[in-house]
């Protein structure tokens, strides 16, 4: 009984996943059609390629209240556009480092390669991230600076 009560009050993280159309999105589809369950805290945003995932999307997601962000696409060599994911990877290396230095915990930002056939891996990646974010708690850093956007009289 006690454990059940706990789950009711437990913090439920909001996770945004930016995924590539050709691999991860199809992989997520496969997870669905194969009826593999994963936690419902994730919201998928489909983009043509990981190369299209502008870092500003990730900043915007955190800004607007995401507790965690997943970025996922085709395995190296499998890119539908040949090299989109290689370019993306370079960018991520720099971007990840920057966010880390600026105080956005790398536990909240995950990168993964999930192919169209890896429905199972997709659920693992998502569950893993959600669990990590849940353990880390809500992302409070932006909360303070977001407060001034609303007024209550």
């Amino acid at each position: 009984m006690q454990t059940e009560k706990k789950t009711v009050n437990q913090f439920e993280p909001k996770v945004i996943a930016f995924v590539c159309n050709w691999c991860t999105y199809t992989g997520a589809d496969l997870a669905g059609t194969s009826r593999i369950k994963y936690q419902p805290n994730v919201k998928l945003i489909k983009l043509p390629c990981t190369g299209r995932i502008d870092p500003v999307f990730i900043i915007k997601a955190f800004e607007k209240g995401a507790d965690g962000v997943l970025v996922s696409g085709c395995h190296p060599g499998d890119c539908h556009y040949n090299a989109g994911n290689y370019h993306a990877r370079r960018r991520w290396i720099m971007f990840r480092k920057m966010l880390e230095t600026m105080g956005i915990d790398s536990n909240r930002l995950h990168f993964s390669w999930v192919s169209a056939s890896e429905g199972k891996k997709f659920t693992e990646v998502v569950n893993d991230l959600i669990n990590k974010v849940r353990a880390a708690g809500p992302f409070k850093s932006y909360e303070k600076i977001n407060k001034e956007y609303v007024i209550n009289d």
Partner: protein
Amino acid sequence: MTELKNLVKSLLEEGKVTKVIGYRMYGENNTKPYIAVTPNDAEEMVLNTDCRNNLSVYLTKKEIINGGKTGIVAKGCDIRNIIALIQENRIKEEDILIISAECKGVGAEKGSAVYANKCVNCSVKTPHLYHELVEMKGSELSQPKDKYTEAKEKVLAMNSGERFEYFSNMFSECIKCYACRQACPMCYCEQCIADMSIPRWIESSATDRGNLSWNMIRAFHLSGRCTGCNECERACPAEIPLSFINKLMYDTAKEEFNYESGMNKETPTLIGSYNTKDNDNFIQ
């Protein structure tokens, strides 16, 4: 070695260039950018330890670069920006003529007795791409305090919440004038992401949220491209230490990819290229 004035004069007389972007005196111990068009204009040209500006920013302005070959007076660090612009296909080498000198370093500000921060550990005092060489005037100054290493250690000792606080406090001073962008030779986009309104990616208000995302994106867009000329910091009216975050990204590029922008015009740009063997260990 020819005298700068004579050189510029003869270049303009012979029609080898249509104009020369250089410096002229601006009160005592200070210079300002200047374009010489006629041979007589060359009289005012100077190159000394007060030439703080990075003139390569003018090479990104169409009104200036269009209309014939442009001469430019550039110190080693400025040449890095010119090379970076060539690397990014922004300008062509044949359109410009670089007049450079063995650099003596520049003063931190008007009448300052110490070098500017960008001069610390400078590796390009000897110019690495030039067409004409002249002499730089000025006396030796003393080394400034290394604030960067100190600040870096301080930040790295913090936890992520503290770091976020540290940076949002730092950027809360920002007034969103975008002087950092305008003064930067590498910020040449026709339309900056900060000016895009549909959708509005970066809020234009100078609130903590808008300031933080602007400064994050600015730093990221310059990562692997910034050469550390510190023009942004010099232009910033709010005195935000922008070079700190720039340098952090510069160091990252160096550590991860052994890449320094603006050193070799043949090297592909960091973000514009890839290697199939790039670090993969953070990707699940």
